[in-house]
């Protein structure tokens, strides 16, 4: 959306639409690789020196740093996937992500901050689907030679009680 010098809405440009399309597609691809169990592709959606974190809202609201998952760099994302595949013991499960309210909060050249809501519905072996986590993505994306990638992805979750365990990233 373009705003003129007087702060008045001046129409949507083709560039606005393209940017919206590209970043929406990044988000769609992100949830799809997780929800279809293509987790090996998940680290590819991040920049090399990325930060990925899952933090409860109760800490974020108080400015406390601690969360349940903190990955610094893509190697730690890959380690999480290797660990999930080979070293963690848990009940087979699937996620379905629903996202809404994508908005850009800061556009600065080739770096964009964006936020959206997410809900993860988890289905376990008993055949019941449960609302596993509701939260908000606070993302910073950068334009790389491979396209838009997450420089930082912070999932701030409302559902402070994690049911049983969290092994698949949100």
């Amino acid at each position, binding site marked *: 959306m373009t705003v003129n010098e007087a702060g008045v809405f001046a129409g949507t440009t083709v560039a606005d639409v393209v940017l919206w399309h590209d970043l929406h597609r990044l988000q769609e691809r992100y949830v799809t690789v997780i929800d279809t169990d293509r987790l090996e592709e998940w680290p590819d959606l991040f920049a090399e020196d990325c930060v990925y974190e899952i933090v409860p809202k109760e800490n974020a609201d108080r400015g406390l740093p*601690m969360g349940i998952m903190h990955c610094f760099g893509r190697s730690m994302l890959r380690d999480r996937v290797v660990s999930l595949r080979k070293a963690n013991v848990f009940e087979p499960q699937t996620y379905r992500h629903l996202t809404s309210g994508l908005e850009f909060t800061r556009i600065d050249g080739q770096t964009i901050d964006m936020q959206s809501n997410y809900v993860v519905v988890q289905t376990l072996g008993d055949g019941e689907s449960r609302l596993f986590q509701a939260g908000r993505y606070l993302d910073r994306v950068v334009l790389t030679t491979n396209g838009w990638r997450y420089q930082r992805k912070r999932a701030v979750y409302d559902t402070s009680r994690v049911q049983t365990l969290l092994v698949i990233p949100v």
Partner: protein
Amino acid sequence: MNQPANPSDAEKLVCFPREDGSRIPYEVYSSPQVYQLEQERIFRGPIWSFVGMEAEIPLPNDFKSTFVGDTPVVVTRDADGILSAWVNRCAHRGAIVCRAPRGNARSFSCAYHQWSYDCRGNLRGVPFRNGVNGICGMPADFDSNEHGLEQLRTESYRGLIFATFSDRTASLADYLGQQMRERLDRIFHKPITYLGCTRQYSRSNWKLYTENVRDPYHAALLHPFFSTFNLVRASTRIEHIFDQGGLHHCVMLFQTEDNSGAAAYKESKIASFKEGLRLEDLSILANVREFKEEANFQIQSIFPQLVVQQVQNSLVVRQLLPKGPQSFELIFNFFGYSDDTPEMVMHRIKEANLVGPAGLISMEDTFATELIQFGTAHAGGTLSVADMGRDAADTENARSVISEKPVRRFWRAYQEVMGL
């Protein structure tokens, strides 16, 4: 629900057929009657329950809401810094008075009729106490001093706050005992900084977790991360520290070279040992020396609501809260030391990946306790077996990963407290 009136009635609830604690009736994990009795004999009995860290309420008039067993309790620090705990139930009609999980307040007023209390739970205000225009009002014999919130005895040790409903139980220092105090002294040897909490909820009985932290046997087997990266193997040097009574326990695990290359795991074809597992970023497993007595792990369980954990440089005070017979909540309170460099804080945050609800080395614990809960549904009359090391000498049990002595000791102490 009929509450047993005395221990002889209680005996009928469940039967521990052996005196050594090696046979555990599965009903203790699901019986509503046992749960009810625990509320009476443990959580409202002569036991100190952990309710919070002083670092959670560092400033005058800070408070937090929590529980002692099922009973909602608020822990406060008043303007003079004095710690108190009171039942979060209005003395008027029983409504929850404090509805915030934490905050800062000089007084607390009930939403329903606006009765108000000070930080220590004393009744300070009753609206229209003298009526309106001289009509109605409280009777002349109404004494505010008799209508405060129910207050608990509150004491803290090394910044850990405990509360009890009992007037007759020993001081907190005696309840912990010297052996347990020494372990807490090691962890809380200098001022700490609170880094936040995470919460995990399990559909299983709270005592399954109490057993879990007393059971290093499982650590060497359930968690592939432990054995594969030689954090804990069956051959790891270990030290069990017992208290006098058996309610509490501490285990310390020391870095131990395994020159056999995990031969015992390979020969036994133990499925949870993952020979091919490799990490790209090994800094997550680094242990920065910061204690005089160097151990990779110290897991200390203070019955019933506290586990203090040092896993490498990840420091956590876990609060265990029962939520009915078949559920519990686990709150992980992370902390560092006040003199940590920014790099050390980052290291602790990185190592937090090892523990908690998404912990690489321990996420399986609540999954395992749920497997037991589901597996033992309606298993009345059948028994759990805790025989490992049963005929071994105490000196052997005290330094073996493959020992269930702490589990047996716990059940003996539990029976005593419960009168079972």
